[in-house]
């Protein structure tokens, strides 16, 4: 497993040279608190994100919870919820590390083959991951609006960063995209 720092070291060691270009790592350090807040935002809302994503996936494809569907008995539905949480957890680790190696090595490696062997439909899985991607972006951005929330709009404090952590939103989205690419 690597993080942003050890990744730089391992690639410098491949050419036996020093790590001299530190601009990317300095950016990681400078935006360190934002990154930790983003990780915290996902970790604190994980249960809600997972159940909403799986519920959304089923709403769009009711066949999943009818006899013969892949979420039909509670046992399989529970496995589905568990898997969604595992994927979200490894994406959170990757976001904390600033590097996708932990996600690749410990979660995505062989996942597609496992799902193929178990007969899990990848299109539905991908849809759940897409919903989690949108949720993660929303939680990191933390920018609720009237148009989405309507009467339930609830403002959480004042704006902390003007750019709404755009780079972290993009980074988190890239990890979800990695999951989607690995499954399809």
């Amino acid at each position, binding site marked *: *497993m*690597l*993080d*942003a*720092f*050890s990744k*730089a*070291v*391992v690639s*410098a*060691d491949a050419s*036996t*040279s*020093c*790590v*001299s270009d*530190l601009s990317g*790592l*300095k950016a990681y*350090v400078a935006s*360190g*608190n934002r990154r*930790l807040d983003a*990780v*915290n935002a*996902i*970790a604190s809302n*994980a249960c809600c994100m997972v159940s909403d994503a799986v519920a959304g996936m089923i709403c769009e494809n009711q066949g999943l919870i009818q006899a013969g569907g892949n979420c039909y008995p509670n046992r399989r539905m529970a496995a589905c919820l568990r898997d969604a949480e595992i994927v979200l*957890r490894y994406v*959170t*680790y990757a976001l*904390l*590390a*600033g590097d996708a190696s*932990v996600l690749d090595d*410990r979660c995505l490696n062989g996942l597609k083959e496992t799902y193929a062997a178990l007969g899990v439909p990848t299109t539905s899985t991908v849809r759940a991951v897409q919903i989690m991607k949108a949720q993660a972006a929303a939680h990191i951005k933390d920018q609720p609006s009237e148009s989405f929330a309507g009467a339930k709009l609830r403002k959480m404090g004042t704006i902390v960063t003007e750019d709404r952590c755009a780079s972290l939103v993009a980074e988190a989205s890239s990890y979800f995209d990695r999951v989607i690419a690995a499954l399809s």
Partner: protein
Amino acid sequence: MKSVVTTVIAAADAAGRFPSTSDLESVQGSIQRAAARMEAAEKLAANIDNVSKEAYDACIKKYGYLNNSGEANETQVKKDKCLRDIKHYMRLINYCLVVGGTGPLDEWGIAGGREVYRALDLPTAPYVEALRFARTRGCAPRDMSAQALVEYNALLDYTINSLS
């Protein structure tokens, strides 16, 4: 590669939980010191040739007998290899400064070092002298900031300890 972040993630993963507040606190602690480490790493990377050369010269000056026939610093090829070894330690220290732990030194420098030096019949005292020279050569506002120098010296001390 062991670092604060990977250790935290490995522990959280072993327990199967999301990163907790205390996990994030330990990462925050590492990030707070990172600015000084980055500065030291950058300065060392920019001057690694000079730093290594000075350290090498200092150890050959102290252990002049190494230039004698049959000793470790006898020929030009051997001289180049000695300098390369010192530079190798400096590069690993640069890596450790970047990672924020002693992982690179442990894995790529110290592990097996004793066996290699014994097999090649190399004395470790000159390495210690070279690193000790580098340890005293660094100067706070001139070379890097005080905090950066503390991080750099701590890793030199760690390497010296591993050799003695």
